[in-house]
């Protein structure tokens, strides 16, 4: 920020307008404001104050015979060097350099910058910026609505526990009970077209009917939620969670679900949401433990209350609160998921290389047990997550650097190990036959393998300057429907094929 006067947009032909053309002064002031706004330490109210001063000064200078543009330049010059001024503001308002989540949305720095706003929620944000004039449910990014929906989700789950639903019911229906509230929040916040709303609602109804109508086998060794469930039931429930999460993404993208950018936004949302949810869960868990501990010192047992009321309410409610937080702080705080990616990509790459070396030296991966494939699916999911979240925050125009090379090494290492695993597993399928679990994890493994193999190829092309970064991103966003399809297969096709075992 070296220049001490803002550069007015262009040397407008002042004489053509003649002195006193109001538009010219307005344009100069606007470009001055835009220049000053780059600084975090100076907020909108400060600029209003400075602008008012500037115009007073201009008026005084005009009276002694200066033209608008001359008067403006003198007035700006007299304000002093921008650097010194913003430094002085920063000293008084040091907290502004730490971006704050401003609940009333009024003093939010940069709030006047229309370019930074997401198109769909523009109207809401503007209502927000108007502060007191907005109805209460629109204030604070719709906190009231988010809370109401969160309470709704909590009440539904609590009601289900009170009527004595069995564990298998919760396994099947947990996502069905909670995610409709999240979808409703997106519908309220992003206003998708009716067709998208119907599609999302249809998906919920379909999954709900299928999961609760299928005649699940009652006896099985698998355990979940403290009760017995069939393998296919467990798989279908997991598939339902993935599929319905992706379908709520249709509501999130406000019907633009075909657009790569909108899909990437949902991916970003999902990552940030997860981080916030985990943080809320950690703090909530710690506070609950503290409360229970404090009460136990005075011989009052509140653990049952937490188990019976607080947890069933808080776990679903936090889903909505986390979703609200992601939206509310979007422009305020640096996204956390990409930061975590930057930290863990190098570490995970080292781990994978070590794994390759160990696998080659030991050469016993072929004898590994049946859990190996599931463990490896998780490894590939982590690799994919690290890749996608680093894409999500990368400047597409930036040239390839060391981080992109590390990513390629990570991809290649993951692919090599996965090929070992696949060879071992496919070779032994003849021995064990196709169980639902194995088929599902094998399918997921192949889907991820294809994705990562092509991603590695594109990454190589990008490093050699042959592929634009956009192609890498489009490949990942274009692949999202594949996950949806596989999840749908798990829900709809697997149970009948495997006799609901």
């Amino acid at each position, binding site marked *: 920020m070296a220049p001490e006067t803002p550069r007015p947009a262009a040397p407008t032909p002042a004489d053509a307008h003649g002195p006193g053309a109001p538009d010219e002064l307005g344009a100069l002031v606007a470009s001055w404001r835009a220049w000053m706004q780059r600084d975090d330490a100076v907020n909108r109210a400060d600029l209003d*104050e400075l602008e008012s*001063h500037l115009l*007073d*000064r201009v008026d005084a200078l005009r009276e002694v015979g200066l033209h608008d543009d001359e008067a403006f330049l003198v007035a700006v010059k007299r304000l*002093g060097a921008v650097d*010194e001024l913003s430094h002085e*503001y920063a*000293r008084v308002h040091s907290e502004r350099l730490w971006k704050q989540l401003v609940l009333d949305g009024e003093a939010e720095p940069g709030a006047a910058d229309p370019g930074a706003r997401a198109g769909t929620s523009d109207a809401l944000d503007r209502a927000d910026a108007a502060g007191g004039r907005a109805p209460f449910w629109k204030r604070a990014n719709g906190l009231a609505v988010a809370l109401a929906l969160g309470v709704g989700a909590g009440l539904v789950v609590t009601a289900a526990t009170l009527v004595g639903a069995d564990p298998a019911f919760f396994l099947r229906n947990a996502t069905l009970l909670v995610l409709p509230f999240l979808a409703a929040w997106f519908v309220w916040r992003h206003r998708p077209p009716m067709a998208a709303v119907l599609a999302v609602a249809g998906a919920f109804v379909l999954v709900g009917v299928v999961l609760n109508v299928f005649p699940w086998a009652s006896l099985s060794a698998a355990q979940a939620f403290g009760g017995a469930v069939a393998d296919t039931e467990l798989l279908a429930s997991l598939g339902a969670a993935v599929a319905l999460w992706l379908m709520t993404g249709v509501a999130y993208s406000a019907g633009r679900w075909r657009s790569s950018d909108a899909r990437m936004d949902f991916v970003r949302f999902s990552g940030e949401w997860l981080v916030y949810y985990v943080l809320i869960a950690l703090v909530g868990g710690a506070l609950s433990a503290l409360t229970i501990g404090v009460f136990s010192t005075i011989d009052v047992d509140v653990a049952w209350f937490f188990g019976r009321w607080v947890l069933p309410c808080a776990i679903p409610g936090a889903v909505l609160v986390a979703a609200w937080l992601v939206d509310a702080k979007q422009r305020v705080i640096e996204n956390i998921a990409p930061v975590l990616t930057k930290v863990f990509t190098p570490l995970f790459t080292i781990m994978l290389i070590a794994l390759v070396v160990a696998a080659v030296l030991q050469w016993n991966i072929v004898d590994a047990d049946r859990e190996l494939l599931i463990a490896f699916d998780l490894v590939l999911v982590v690799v994919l997550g690290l890749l996608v979240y680093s894409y999500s925050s990368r400047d597409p125009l930036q040239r390839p650097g060391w981080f992109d090379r590390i990513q390629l090494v990570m991809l290649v290492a993951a692919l090599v190990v996965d090929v070992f695993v696949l060879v071992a597993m496919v070779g032994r399928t003849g021995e064990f036959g196709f169980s639902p679990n194995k088929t599902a994890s094998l399918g997921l493994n192949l889907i991820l393998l294809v994705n990562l193999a092509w991603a590695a190829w594109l990454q190589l092309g990008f490093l050699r300057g042959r592929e634009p970064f956009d192609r890498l991103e489009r490949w990942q966003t274009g692949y999202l429907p594949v996950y949806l399809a596989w999840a749908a297969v798990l829900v709809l096709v697997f149970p009948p094929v495997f006799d609901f075992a």
Partner: protein
Amino acid sequence: MRIGKDLVAAAATPVVLGILAEGESYGYAILQRITALSGGELEWSDGMLYPLLHRLERLGHVRAEWRHSDTGRPRKHYRLTEQGAGVLTEQRRQWSVVGEVLSKVWPDDGGPRMRLAFGEV
């Protein structure tokens, strides 16, 4: 003659508080008043007044309020609080001590050392 930077910085707070003690005012008018009072010799860049006012507001010495000028231009008006008045009294005591000391070491005739310095002895 321009007054040095450090002295301006030291004098800024009591001067601004003193002007606000005359009645509520806004940034531009305060600067006009300072220029008029000092004959243009006590000056700093216009913008610097505002961080100072914000600091005083934060400390509770002044209270601010948005008003509109006659032409409809929004203006932030500052008013001295009771606490600010107390601070002003305190500052005034300190400055008058400094002034007394200075007038004693610099008597009107300059004193013996000054006469020496100017070669009058």
